[in-house]
């Protein structure tokens, strides 16, 4: 760190950061509308899809998901009231927590289906790699703001990359390829928002493509396997399903059949045989979108995509109306988390993306994913409440939190 005058202290002197800019802080109602729509669909879908999953307890998953949503809402409200600006200085702590938790998982966590991603807590199993998504956005945003003046230098770009890629590598070792790719997406979003020069971005993209080619094609043929066989097979197998006789193709085929058979209006709950007869795997977690596609057809599936588009649009919009750079970067990082997961998950169920185990935010069953998504939503609202742009104020509705 340099000995020069901290630019932030000057800024703080000019512009007080905390406290509402105007009276009557306003939340973004569009986000709330999208979220209420999505979690309603999630609850209805989980209720019917998991009715027979736990013998003697048809509401097992529904109750739990409901509790997660409630808990998430409380967390989101608390975070929204809290001034996100206070998190700016805690970037080292966030990064340290991110690294520590993921290393802990790598070393000690319980094995579930061949990968260790969980830490058992008294209430539920926490997935640190999920929480890591938010921690990474905060750490990256804090760093980018602190080095805003030298953002155009290669050194800062390199350090930003290191902050994101080190935890991404650890997560990949767990192994959780999907989440590590989310980390990369977050990095991209932060670099774009923080003002990293375009030539750096182009160079990074080139480097990324080269790495992908090495990992997927060149190194395996040389006998070095960076990815596990099943990961490689899933990544390459979806391009050419007949070359991949494993379970992954079965899952995607069943998902395509479920979605396709939904046609325009869906098959209804009783008619959804792909879900009801267990042909569709992971019907309440990774493949929940296929359940929606089967049950409500194009109408329902398109509505869900529209709600997600609304959510992502509102998040992206915050980037340009945020009070400060930190808020802008935070909003864009969160938009990236959401958009990337939505596209990869839905793309997977539609057979156009590989199977990477990325959950569908606000839809898939799972405590970690729900809570972390609500933390993100809380942060978005926090940024929105403190946005300074009059354009934001114009579309705001008057609601007190």
């Amino acid at each position: 760190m340099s000995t020069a005058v901290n630019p932030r202290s000057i800024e703080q002197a000019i512009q007080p950061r905390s406290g509402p800019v105007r009276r009557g802080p306003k939340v973004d109602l569009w986000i709330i509308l999208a979220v209420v729509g999505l979690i309603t669909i999630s609850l209805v879908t989980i209720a019917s899809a998991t009715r027979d999953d736990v013998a003697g307890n048809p509401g097992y998953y529904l109750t739990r998901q409901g509790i997660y949503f409630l808990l998430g809402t409380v967390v989101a409200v608390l975070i929204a009231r809290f001034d996100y600006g206070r998190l700016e200085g805690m970037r080292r702590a966030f990064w340290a927590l991110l690294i520590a938790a993921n290393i802990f998982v790598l070393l000690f966590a319980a094995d579930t289906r061949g990968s260790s991603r969980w830490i058992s807590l008294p209430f539920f199993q926490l997935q640190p790699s999920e929480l890591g998504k938010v921690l990474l956005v905060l750490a990256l945003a804090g760093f980018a703001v602190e080095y805003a003046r030298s953002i155009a230098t290669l050194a800062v770009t390199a350090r930003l990359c290191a902050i994101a890629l080190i935890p991404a590598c650890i997560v990949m070792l767990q192994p959780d390829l999907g989440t590590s790719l989310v980390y990369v997406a977050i990095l991209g979003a932060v670099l774009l928002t923080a003002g990293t020069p375009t030539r750096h971005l182009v160079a990074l993209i080139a480097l990324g493509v080269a790495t992908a080619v090495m990992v997927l094609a060149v190194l395996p043929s040389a006998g070095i396997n960076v990815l596990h066989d099943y990961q490689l097979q899933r990544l390459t197998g979806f391009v050419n399903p007949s070359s991949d006789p494993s379970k992954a193709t079965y899952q995607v085929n069943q998902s395509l059949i479920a979605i396709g058979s939904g046609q325009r209006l869906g098959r209804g709950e009783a008619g959804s045989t792909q879900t009801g007869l267990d042909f569709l795997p992971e019907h309440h977690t990774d493949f929940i979108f296929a359940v929606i596609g089967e049950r409500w057809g194009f109408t329902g599936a398109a509505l869900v995509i529209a709600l997600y588009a609304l959510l992502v649009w509102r998040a992206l919009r915050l980037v340009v109306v945020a009070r400060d750079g930190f808020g802008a970067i935070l909003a864009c990082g969160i938009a990236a988390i959401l958009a990337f997961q939505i596209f990869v998950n839905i793309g997977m169920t539609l057979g156009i993306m590989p199977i990477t185990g990325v959950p569908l935010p606000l839809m898939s069953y799972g405590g970690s994913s729900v809570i972390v998504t609500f933390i993100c939503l809380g942060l978005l609202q926090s940024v929105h409440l403190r946005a300074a742009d009059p354009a934001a104020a114009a579309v705001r509705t008057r609601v007190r939190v």
Partner: protein
Amino acid sequence: MIEPTGDPGRAPSNVRLGRRMAFVGGVILLLFALLLLRLWYLQVLDGDNYLAKANDNQVRDVALAAPRGRIVDRAGRVLVDSRPANAIVVVPGRLPEIGSPEREQVALKLSRTLDLETAPEPCKLASGTRQLSPLACRIERESAALPYANVVVRKDASTDEAGWVLEHKRELPGVDVSRVWLRTYPEGPVGAQLFGTVGEISAEQLGKPRFAGIKQGTVIGQSGLEYQYDRYLRGRDGAERIQVDATGRARRTLRSSEPVPGKTLRLALDLGLLRTGQSALATAMSLGSGATGAAYIAIDPRDGSVLALGSAPSFDPGVFAKPISQSRYAEMFGAGALYPQLNRAIQSSYPTASTFKAFTALAALGEGVITPATVVDDPGSIKIGNVIFRNAGNQANGPVNLASALRLSSDVYFYRLGAKLNTPKGPGGPIQEWLRRLGFGEETGIDLPGEAAGTIPTPKWRADRKVKEAECAAKRGGPCGLSDGRAWSVGDNVNLSVGQGDFLATPLQLAVAYAAIANRGKVLRPRVAKDVRNDSGLVLQAIRARPARSVAIDAEDRQAILEGLREAAMDDGGTSADVFSDFGRVVYGKTGTAERPGQADQAWYALYIPDRKRPLVVVVTVEQGGFGAQSAAPAARLIASRWFGQKGKLVVGNSRTR
């Protein structure tokens, strides 16, 4: 308001940030549009296709096998029955992909449970040779031959084996247990060739009109009565459409049609006589040293009902419930085992030797060449042309008339007739004409498949064979053995007059011809089956023989021949008098001892026993069984004793006459 310039917390340029966010927003919009397009394609454009696949996923059509009908004897005693069993089958279409290790794993797991060989061995397939376990090899081969048929891995699985497969369905994709019906044979080898065997319809059979409408995998009759009366015995398989979940477990039945069991086939056969007949054959074979086979048939001379029919050696048809290796099959059913599946009573034709003399007599009497009283001197041999024809053992019988010629089985008497009745051209003379009238040289039309037609040698037949031999030899480049190339000569007719030479007939044909003499000229179409009944015994269809042909037999001629046959069986000096003189009933019977090149003599016996209610014609032959009186006649007596409720008594004759 914040000054855009100089605000250190902000991105360097709001304009650039705006541009970048527009770019990011545009990319995300594009990706979401891609999702929607794909969704539209899957659900709206291609939705029907996926809906069909979804239905295909959850719906299984299961065939419910129908039991085949029973075969019962005239009194309703069960001869062939059906019992339920569990078959372990592989549905090739639901196995893991060809060539994948998972597919081989399924075969391995199954092999271990069923105690089959697991060591991989080279397996020749259309796609090349691969190292596979024997079971995997069988599955690949059979599924390649009949792509949509299930491969039956084990026909008669034990409850343990079937239970294991059901419990491990998840690990065994494509393996299933199906309920099947297997044939049971309470009588074991008795009548095995007559009843025949069943088996799944073959690829070849599927294309034939006889089997039109029969689905792949259906069990049909493959031989014997099972084949002949398949359309009655075969029930109609039911079908069940069930909804299954991802693990293949049935959730509910959507539609089902009940299987309709096959009908009961009632035979004219008498089980007691059948049993006796089979054991009599065994006895006869043991009497003639080195016998290679035997057959008998007992018919009612009034209507051609087959009372019993058998062939030896026999086999236990129950063995087909278990898989048999090719080498084991060859061992059990090949030359070494004397072809036990051959029904010698109807499928083998032989020279019938002296039993034939009755027909020569019919022809001679009919032509007026002799009268019953005509006396001929029998010095033991006769020279016809350049050839000397002799009696058996050169025995001189002195002056003989028709009756005594039959009693003593004088060859010379009949040789003379053969020479006299020879016609050197075309279809031959009166003997051939009578043979045709009596049904030789063509199938009798019995209700059994695979009947042999036999041969009536004529000058024309000889000439035709010679031409065929020449054609065949030209094609093959060597002799075919169809003909010795010799033209017809009087010697051929002389040989024919005593049932030798080129003449061939089945035991069945001989029985039909004797029955025609017995019933005054009706040439019968024998019938094994009597009627078709339902479960409660109601007759659904009576099986009647098509009307028999009639041949005019002069009453006096008939009487003369019967007298000769009676003396042969009953009177002193008769060739089978040793065997039948104490029988207690009038027996008309004739021995026969056929000379067969390169083999021991074949024993024959044909008899007719009149009775107001239960007349009987029996023919017995024993391949390489020696003299007729030595093995065939004693067996015929055992059979006749049973029919007339007498105590079975084995009496071996001493006559060394042919």
